[in-house]
């Protein structure tokens, strides 16, 4: 049996994996009301492709093993959706880009392998901003995913497809990547739990790299418990990723934990309540903090004066790493190949011209510029200096506080097309999420309420490697709501 206390996970019985999966894959239009995947896809464009054949094969295998009384794992038969920048078998891995639109992965991401080892089944690949560049999923080279709460609005990004799929109850959990807020922002916009672990806690092996020094992999789920269980399965040192760290020996499964808000010291990040914060969001977050206070936590305001610089730092370091990480997509060994090219130089130019969208090109140019000789010291090096300062300010704050809280985003989900023409406005969406990435600390977005019928997420940030405690306090907050 699955973990009984995991709200969504216990819908599935490992004895009926195939039946359960057929429920997702059934494409008979007469029973379309029962087919979550199709509804989600038809109206919200949450997924790019399904991995139906392989998923059904794996489900049959798990059924078979269960029948024989074999070990089936803690997530046996639980379907999930992976953001399409995770390399998976059974279909294509596109990163929502034209460059990789026909790419079939020769190996699987470590995170996927670990989930499969516990019996989870990847059924589809979620839409994203191409290469995870964006905050709205509008940068997908294929189509825009719509917000489950309002089809005219964006789901947030870049893990927009994953967040929408969870919010639509398509699956109990989805995987996302968070480089500057890409899990937390869409979780906040769609009303899901989105968890960004400590940098290095989950292996990045087999995930299309965006900015390697801030990329993390994490779950989007309906409850903190589910997110914690998925993290429990995915986390830990991986010999394929040298930046991975050991997991907490006590694990992250919250079944046995009992975190109390009363004993916590919580700092409200002053800089996140400046002008620019929508009144509706401010109200929901204020109420959430009020509840935490009422529950007995010691709450006070804290200032991290360098936080306003975090976005500038991020938009130097991130494009620099993006320009480097995208250099391998030259059309020579895999990916989009420019057939008309007459020589090598043209082949490079055309493959990249045709295979990359506007945002990828923008970041490659910014990145190449800040790394170029003569500009490196002024941009990249200075950004690293400020980064160190931000890390230190967080460390100082965590000497006084167990956790820091604030909004995830200054606004609720915005209209599709609203910011697409103005990259700067789009970048500003990340203003409250990037700092956690820059500092490598864990952070969670947890639904706190609605503003004008749109979800608002509360962000809780913990010190490095405090993932177990952070999930615990998030669960305690979750329980306050109900």
């Amino acid at each position, binding site marked *: 049996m699955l973990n009984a206390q995991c709200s969504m996970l216990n819908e599935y019985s490992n004895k009926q994996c195939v039946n359960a999966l057929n429920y997702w894959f059934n494409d008979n239009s007469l029973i379309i009301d029962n087919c979550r995947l199709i509804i989600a896809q038809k109206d919200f464009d949450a997924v790019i492709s399904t991995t139906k054949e392989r998923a059904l094969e794996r489900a049959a295998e798990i059924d078979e093993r269960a029948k024989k009384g074999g070990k089936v794992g803690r997530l046996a038969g639980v379907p999930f959706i992976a953001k399409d920048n995770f*390399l998976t078998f059974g279909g294509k*891995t596109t*990163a929502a880009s034209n460059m*990789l639109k026909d*790419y079939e*992965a*020769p*190996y699987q*991401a470590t995170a996927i392998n670990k989930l499969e080892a516990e019996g989870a089944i990847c059924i589809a690949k979620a839409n994203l901003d191409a290469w995870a560049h964006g905050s709205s999923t509008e940068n997908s080279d294929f189509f825009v995913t719509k917000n489950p709460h309002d089809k005219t609005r964006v789901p947030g990004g870049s893990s927009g497809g994953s967040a929408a799929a969870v919010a639509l109850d398509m699956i109990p959990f989805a995987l996302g990547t968070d480089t500057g807020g890409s899990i937390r922002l869409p979780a906040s916009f769609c009303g899901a739990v989105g968890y960004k672990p400590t940098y290095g806690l989950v292996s*990045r*092996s*087999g*995930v*299309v*790299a965006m*900015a*390697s*020094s801030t990329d993390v992999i994490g779950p989007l789920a309906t409850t903190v418990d589910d997110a914690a269980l998925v993290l429990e399965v995915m986390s830990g040192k991986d*010999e*394929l*990723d*040298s*930046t991975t760290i050991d997991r907490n020996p006590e694990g992250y499964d919250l079944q046995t934990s009992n975190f109390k808000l009363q004993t916590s010291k919580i700092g409200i990040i002053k800089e996140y309540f400046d002008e620019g914060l929508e009144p509706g969001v401010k109200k929901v977050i204020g109420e959430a903090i009020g509840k935490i206070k009422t529950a007995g936590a010691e709450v006070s305001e804290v200032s991290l004066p360098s936080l306003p610089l975090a976005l500038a730092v991020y938009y130097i370091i991130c494009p*620099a*790493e993006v*320009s*480097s990480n*995208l*250099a*391998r997509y*030259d059309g*020579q*060994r*895999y990916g989009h190949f420019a057939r008309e090219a007459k020589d*090598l130089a043209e082949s*490079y130019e055309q493959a990249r011209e045709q295979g990359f969208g506007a945002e990828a090109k923008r970041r490659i140019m910014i990145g*190449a510029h800040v*790394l*170029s*000789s003569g500009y*490196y010291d002024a941009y*990249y090096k200075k950004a690293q200096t400020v980064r160190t300062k931000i890390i230190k300010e967080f460390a100082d704050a965590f000497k006084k506080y167990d956790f820091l809280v604030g909004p995830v985003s200054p606004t609720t989900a915005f209209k599709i097309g609203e910011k697409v023409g103005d990259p700067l406005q789009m970048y500003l969406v990340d203003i409250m999420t990037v700092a956690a990435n820059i500092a490598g600390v864990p952070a969670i977005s947890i639904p706190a309420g609605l503003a004008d019928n749109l979800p608002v997420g509360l962000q809780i940030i913990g010190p490095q490697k405090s993932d177990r405690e952070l999930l615990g306090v998030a669960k305690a907050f979750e329980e306050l709501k109900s």
Partner: protein
Amino acid sequence: MSISDYTPTVGIETHVQLKTKTKLFAAVGNDARQAAPNTLISHICVGVPGALPVLNEAAIELCARAALALGTEPQKLSHFERKHYFYPDLPKGYQITQYESPIIAGGHLHIEVDDLKKCISIERANLEEDAGKNTHPAGADYSLVDLNRAGTPLLEIVSMPDIHSAAEAKAYARELWLTMKYAGVTDGDLYHGHMRFDINVSVSKDSKKLGTRSEIKNLNSFRSVEGAVAYEIKRQVELLEKSQKVVQETRGWDEAKQKSLAQRGKEEAEDYRYMPEPDIPPVELVDKYVRNIENKMPDLPPVIRMKLREIDVDNKVIEEVLDRPIIVPTVLEILGKNGPKSARLAIFWILHPQLAELETKQGKLSQIDPDWKKLKQLTDMVNEGKLSSNSGRIVFKELIYGSTSDWPKEIAKRLKLLQVSDQAEMEKMVAEVISQNPKVVKDIKAGQEKAIGFLVGQVMAKTGGQANPGLAQQLIKKQLGL
């Protein structure tokens, strides 16, 4: 004005291929000498999305050895950078190398030219990955890329511009090869490019100022290093003498014509957009680790030279022995166990062209465990005059490369190589020869002493070459009353 009015200055960058079992960042075989193209590759070598480099610790140990061999310590803290450029043999679009903090940041190498000792300082040495290999089949409208070599660990050793002649350049290249080879850092197979030299040459009339330099890359023999430096010095002086300018450029070396040629290509300096490698944590070495390696360091050329000097041979012969690292342990063991006289004989046998050729083909000297008692018997026989030095070599050859388990005495007997030193028997034969050659005897008595040689030859012929020629001559003189 002549060439002697100019001071040439030369700096050499040497790429040393480390003899690790696997590549620098991938668990794939490192020795591509016998492998079919693209058979020693993995996701990492091909630069597949999501593939992360994982540092091979064995390479770090070899770097530490290299540092110690160069008379310095490996750096306690070093890190990797990405060096960006587009080329088909560079799958990721960047090379992982070290730029700001290389693993070796100093050291020196002693060389000797015309009995003058000189110390060449090492500026730095960085650990980096090799690129693949492009081939351009003649007449074809395509090129081929072999990635077997991509990711092979290289230590790039950069000398200070302390070299001032072609002979010094050659001596430096050779001494560096010897040092790296004996330190166990590289297999040092020059034919397969295990050591490649890039030379930077400039000339100046003012010895305090450096002239404009040109660079010649990828030289793979000491001879070509010497030739290229000599040619560049001459070329540059001739240009300056004609009041022309030396262009700062990279030139190619035509080994057949012994000429450097300007290479076509961009003249502008390429901007590699160096960036810290975020996928590999910095390398930290603790003192204990370095001391452990130091304690296991094998003898290096200066020590081996000292040991070999115990044997009474020319320095030139010692260098010839050093040039064949494979035979050094054997020679030193003979020296230790059987003494210098024995070792001296062994050296001459081993260095004999015939044996050298056999050794090149079969490489047995490094594999055999010579029977010291047998070897001692053999060298004793020669030293006692029972066997000529030449016959000794033949027995030695049989001992090493033959399939016999006989003792040298038996082999010599079987091959009829034993010298006849039995007085009585020799006297009989000498008497015979004298009576058979009255005319020669007459000549000798008339003062043509040279003709004795003819009689000695006759004695040798009678004994099938087994006579001790010294004894034969002595007896002839005696019987002729000379």
